[in-house]
C-alpha cells in the first residue's frame, strides 16, 4: 500500500483527491457524504459577503459526444447563495468532525482591502486548513469586478493575495483562470503576493451550444442566455498544459499546485501529479456519477503506484516535467511507421480513408477474393499516428520505430532552418 497523503503549501490531506469548490461542496450535508465516501479534502463552495447572491434557474449546459453524456459541462451558477454565518458554522462543524481531512474555504469578495480583511478573520475562526482565492469564475461575478475580472489582471492578483497573507497565516492557494494569454504571468503574481500555492484551472469561458429553435445560447433562461464556465473531460488537455507551464517556469517550478480540470479517474490524477500537482480537485465527474467514484480513484492510484514501486506521491510527482521540451529540441531523426495487425483487423477501412483524405496517402486498400486488406506504404508514411487513432480496434495499429535510434538532430541545427546554429 502506497502512502497517498499530500501536502499542498501546508494544507495536508490523507489523499490527493479533493472536491473542487462547486455545488458538491456547498453545505455540510454534501461534504459529510463526501468525507464518508473517502475524499481527502474539499474546497468549500465560494463564500462572499452578505447579502447572499441569487442564482438563475436553468444553470448548466452540456456537450454530449457520440452517445457519451457530459463530455463537457458549463455552468452559470454563482458563488454560495447561503448567508455567510450559516456556511461558517457548518465549516467549523465539519472540520471538528473530520480533523484529518483538508477543509479549504474558497473566497470571493469585492476587490478592496476592507472587505478582504473583514472576511479573513471569520474564516480563520472556523479552524479550516486554508483558503483558496477564487480569481477564476468567468461568469456573473466577473461583471461585478470579481472572479476572473481580478484573475486576468496580475497586479490585482498580487495585491489581493498580499491583503490575505497580511491578515492571516492560513495557507493560501490562488485559483487561476485559464481565460488569459499566459498563465505564468498570473502565477508569478500569486507568488509575488505571498501565495502558498496555486490551484488551476478554473472554468473556461464558453457558450456550450445554441438552441436552434429559440435561437439562443444554452442553458436558455426565458429566451436569453449568457456565457458560462466550461469544465469536464473536454478541458483536461488545456488544464494539463497550464499546470505544466507553471511546473516548468523557473520562477514557479517549486510552487505547490492543486490541479483541476476534467479529472475523472486515478489515471487523470496521476498525469497531473506527474506534471507537478500535489493534489487534484474533481468536480464534473462527481456531479455526474456521485461521490463514490473516489473509491476507484484511491484504489486505482494505489495499485498503479504499487506496481510501479512508488511509495508516495513525491516519488513520481514532477517526473514527466523534464520531458516536456520545446518543439525545436525534438529529435527529427526519430522515425515511426504504422503497422497493421492483420489478425485483429476488422477491415473497416478507416485507416485507409483517414490517411487517403486527410494525411499522406500511405495506406493502400487491396481487394482480393471478395475481401480486402490494408497495407502501409512505408515510403509515404510520416508516422503521424492518425490511422492508429481512427482504428476502432485497440492495438490493431501500432507505430514501430524504424530509425537507427542512435542519431539525433533537432531544428536548431537543421539545414532548412535559416536561423540554425552551426552544428560542429
Amino acid at each position, binding site marked *: 500500500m502506497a502512502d497517498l497523503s499530500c501536502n499542498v503549501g501546508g494544507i495536508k490531506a490523507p489523499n490527493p483527491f479533493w472536491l473542487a469548490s462547486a455545488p458538491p461542496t456547498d453545505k455540510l450535508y454534501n461534504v459529510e457524504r463526501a468525507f464518508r465516501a473517502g475524499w481527502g479534502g474539499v474546497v468549500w463552495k465560494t463564500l462572499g459577503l452578505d447579502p447572499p447572491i441569487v442564482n438563475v434557474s436553468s444553470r448548466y449546459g452540456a456537450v454530449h459526444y*457520440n*452517445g457519451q453524456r457530459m463530455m463537457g459541462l458549463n455552468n452559470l451558477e454563482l458563488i454560495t447563495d447561503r448567508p455567510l454565518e450559516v456556511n461558517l458554522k457548518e465549516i467549523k462543524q465539519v472540520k471538528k468532525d473530520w480533523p484529518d481531512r483538508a477543509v479549504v474555504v474558497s473566497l470571493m469578495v469585492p476587490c478592496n482591502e476592507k472587505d478582504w480583511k473583514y472576511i479573513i478573520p471569520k474564516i480563520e475562526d472556523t479552524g479550516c486548513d486554508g483558503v483558496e482565492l477564487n480569481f477564476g469564475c468567468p461568469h456573473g461575478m466577473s461583471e461585478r469586478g470579481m472572479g476572473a475580472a481580478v484573475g486576468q489582471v496580475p497586479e490585482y492578483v498580487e495585491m489581493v493575495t498580499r491583503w490575505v497573507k497580511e491578515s492571516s497565516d492560513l495557507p493560501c492557494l490562488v485559483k487561476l483562470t485559464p481565460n488569459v494569454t499566459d498563465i505564468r504571468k498570473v502565477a508569478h503574481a500569486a507568488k509575488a503576493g505571498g501565495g502558498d500555492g496555486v490551484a488551476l484551472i478554473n472554468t473556461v469561458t464558453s457558450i456550450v451550444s445554441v438552441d436552434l429553435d429559440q435561437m439562443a445560447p444554452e442553458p436558455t433562461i426565458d429566451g436569453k442566455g449568457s456565457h458560462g464556465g466550461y469544465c469536464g473531460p473536454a478541458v483536461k488537455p488545456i488544464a494539463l498544459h497550464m499546470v505544466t507551464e507553471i511546473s516548468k517556469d523557473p520562477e514557479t517550478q517549486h510552487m505547490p499546485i492543486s490541479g483541476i480540470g476534467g479529472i475523472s479517474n486515478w489515471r487523470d490524477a496521476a498525469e497531473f501529479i506527474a506534471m507537478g500537482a500535489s493534489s487534484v480537485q474533481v468536480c464534473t465527474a462527481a456531479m455526474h456519477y456521485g461521490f463514490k467514484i473516489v473509491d476507484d480513484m484511491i484504489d486505482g492510484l494505489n495499485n498503479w503506484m504499487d506496481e510501479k514501486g512508488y511509495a508516495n506521491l513525491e516519488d513520481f510527482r514532477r517526473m514527466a516535467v523534464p520531458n516536456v521540451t520545446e518543439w525545436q529540441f525534438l529529435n527529427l531523426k526519430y522515425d515511426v511507421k504504422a503497422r497493421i495487425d492483420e489478425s485483429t483487423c476488422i*477491415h*473497416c477501412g478507416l485507416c485507409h*480513408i483517414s490517411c487517403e483524405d486527410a494525411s499522406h496517402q500511405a495506406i493502400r486498400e487491396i481487394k482480393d477474393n471478395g475481401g480486402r486488406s490494408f497495407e502501409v506504404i512505408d515510403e509515404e508514411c510520416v508516422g503521424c499516428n492518425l490511422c492508429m487513432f481512427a482504428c476502432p*480496434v485497440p492495438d490493431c495499429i501500432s507505430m514501430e520505430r524504424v530509425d537507427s535510434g542512435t542519431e539525433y538532430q533537432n531544428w536548431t541545427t537543421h539545414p532548412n532552418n535559416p536561423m540554425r546554429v552551426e552544428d560542429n
Partner: protein
Amino acid sequence: MTTIDVRNGRLSQERLDLNFSDSHPPLEPGNALVEANRCYFCYDAPCIEACPTSIDIPSFIRKISTGNLKGSAKDILSQNIMGGMCARVCPTETLCEGACVRETQDHQPVRIGELQRYATDSFIESGETFFERAESSGKKIAVVGGGPAGLSCAHRLAVLGHQAVVFEAREKLSGLNEYGIAPYKTVNDFAQLEVDYILKIGGIEVRTNQKLGHDVKLDNLRKQFDAVFLSVGLGDANSLGLENEEIAGVYDAIETIAELRQSENLAELSVGRRVVVIGGGSTAIDIAVESKKLGAEDVTMVYRRGPEQMNATWKEQEFAQTNGVQVKHWLSPKKLKSENGHVSGIEFECTELNHEGKLSVTGEVRSMEVDVVFKAIGQTLDNSLDSDDEMPKTRAGKFAVNAKYETTLPGVWAGGDCINSGEDLTVQAVEDGKQAAISIHRKLSQT
C-alpha cells in the same frame, strides 16, 4: 385409436394478443442514438455491398445520430422503396449485419435493421414524400403482380415519368408482404401503410382481382402497353410426392399463413394439438412459430438435412426454438397415416449424406402421431399461368432473364421470385423491380 385434436380457441384473447404483438418492438430514440453511434462509418462499407439494394448504410446511420431523420429515410427509400418492410423482414444476419465489421470484431453487429426501421417509420408516419415524378413520357407499362417486385418497379417507373398499371391477382396489393410475412413481424397493417406510401407518388393505376392467364392475357397486354413487367411470384406449392397427400389435415403452409394474415379474429382459427412442419426455410419457420403462438402443444419442424443446409438462417432457427418449436434434422417424409380420412401420423426415413456427399436413406424409420401436417418445401411458378398465349421461356423452373431483366419475349421484363436473381427475399424482389424499371426506361427512351 387416437383422437384427432384440431380446434380453435386454445388460448385466451389476451395471450393471443401478446403472442402476435411485435416480435421486435421499435427502438426508442435514446436507444437508436446509442446504436447509431456504434457504427464506425466504415470506408466503402461491407454492409452496403451485402445489401441487395445497396443502401448507403453508414450514411443513413450517421444521419440518425445527428438527428437528420428525413435525410436518413431518403438514403434508404431512394434505394429501396420498401425499406420499411425490409427493415422488418430481411434476414439481416446474413446480409448487412452479417457483413458488419463489428460482427467480425466482437459478434455484436450494429443493429442495422432496427435502425432502418427507426428512420423509415418516422418518415412514413410523417406522411411526407421526397419523390417527384419526371415529366410525363406518355409511355404505359403493365406490371403483372403487385408484390414487392411489381410495386418497386411501378414506383420507379412513375418516378421516371411513365404510367404504370398494376394487375394484381388478389384483393390486396403487396404480395407476400400482405399474405406471407408472419403477423408479429409486421404489426398494425404496415404492409398496406407502405402500399399507400408507394402509391402516393401518382401515376400508378391499380387493378386487383386480375389474374394472368385468367382475367388478363399476356398477348393483349403486350399489344396494349409499351412494356410488360412480370412479377407474378411463385404461385404453386411443391408437394411431398406421397401417396395420400390430399387427405384432410395436410396443408400447404403458404395457404394457412395467408389465411392467418387475413384473419380478423385469431381465436377463430383452428390449430392442431400436435403439428408437424416439413421443410427448412423461412416459410417452415413461420408456420411452425405461428402454430405454436396459436396454441399448438407440440410443434415439430422436420428437415431432411442438417441445420447448416437449412435455408432458414441460424437466427430464424433460434427464433423458432425459443418459441418452443422442436427442430429435427435428417428425416425424410415417407408415409402419411390416416384415420377416417384425416391425417393421424407420419413416418420418416432417417437420412444421411453418403460418401459421395449425396442424401441417402439409412433404412431406419421414425414415426410421429400428428393432428396437422404442413408442407413448406418451396414453391414453383403457377402452372395455370400458361394460357393459350405465348409465355417467356423458363430456366430452372423460373422465367429466364438476361442482365437487363428482359425475358425471351420482346417487350416483356420479369423480376422477383419468378426469376432466378438471388435469394427469394423481399429485398431482392425490390431490387429486381427497381432495376427492371430502369432497364425498361432505357429501352423506351431509345424509341
